[in-house]
């Protein structure tokens, strides 16, 4: 662990900041433009790739990760990997529920109660604060 007091702070030139800022604005325009084109499911992929590029520019240059101790970059990337693990492993469950029992593929109610019930019983059904444990639960509908 070094204890040198001399430490040249890396100061980025203004032009670099402006270039990155400009690039970010251009990429924003690009992603808006791309959303009007029809690529089907790939629209999401393209949008996420552009967003990831913009985020990387902010992280590497504005947040200085490119020039700093590698530990911070490792921290940042690791947290994204953990997040990805969380999302992917959870989606292993939610996307494969219907494999054996098709009716479990989607959440319980394809059409929520607020659309099928008139306004006053909606208030009773959805007013969850005042349901007592022993009374029959009003937000439970008989299976269709």
């Amino acid at each position, binding site marked *: 662990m070094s*204890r*040198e*007091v001399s*430490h040249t*702070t890396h*100061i*980025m030139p*203004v032009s670099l*900041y*402006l270039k*990155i*800022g400009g690039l*970010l*604005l251009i990429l*924003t325009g690009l*992603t*808006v433009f*791309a*959303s009007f*084109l*029809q*690529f*089907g499911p790939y*629209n*999401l992929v393209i*949008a*996420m790739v*552009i*967003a990831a590029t*913009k*985020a990387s520019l*902010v*992280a590497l*240059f*504005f*947040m200085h990760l490119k020039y*700093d*101790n590698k*530990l*911070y970059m490792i*921290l*940042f990337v*690791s*947290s*994204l990997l953990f*997040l990805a693990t*969380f*999302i992917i492993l*959870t*989606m292993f469950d*939610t*996307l494969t529920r219907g494999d054996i029992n098709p009716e479990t593929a*989607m*959440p319980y109610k*394809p*059409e*929520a109660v*607020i659309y099928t019930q008139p306004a006053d019983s*909606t208030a009773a059904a*959805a007013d969850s604060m005042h349901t007592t444990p022993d009374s029959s639960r009003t937000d439970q509908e008989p299976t269709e």
Partner: protein
Amino acid sequence: MSQSTEHPAYLQHHFSDAEQQRESVKLGMWIFLVTEILLFGGLFCAYSIYRAWNPDIFFNAHRFMNIELGTTNTCVLIISSLTIALAIRAIQLGKKNQTLVYLGSTFVLAGVFLVIKYFEYAHKFHEGMLPGKFYTFKGIAGTNPHVFFSMYFLMTGLHGIHVTVGMILIGWLMYRTKKGHFSSEYYTPVEMTGLYWHLVDIIWIFLFPLFYLVG
């Protein structure tokens, strides 16, 4: 190795020198940003799952989002990231007034973001495009359109709270800059607030296409 003889006011006594303090604070700040990523991450997870279950709803509902305002807000935050980065650069060079100008610009841009968001929210309240059980808007085809708006208000709401906190921090930084607490030797709070603000920007960079640009 004994304590250095010069002991600046900002150096806390349990650190042996300013560099150790600076690096420790920076590491601590990055760890805090990691916790914020995981906090928002939970909501991104819920978004992914509900969008996978209701792709048609997300497509139909996003048409009712105002793309112009969303794009404007994205540009506003990007420019505010630029201005706060320039503010840090200014204080690294010891330029107090320039720092104040850039911090002030960041503050104003953050305010603009919140104002635009207010108009968007107000419009949705008016139309009945509300989260969960409060949803009453009739014009979106498909079942369970409220799901989109539940996610929208949860995620942009949490983000908006973070923007507000950021504004308060930047305001406090402006006060301290004016008082002369910072210099080219010591500007750690400015740098750390900058890191926080950049993360707030990054989160919006992802929120924008997920809610406004559903292809």
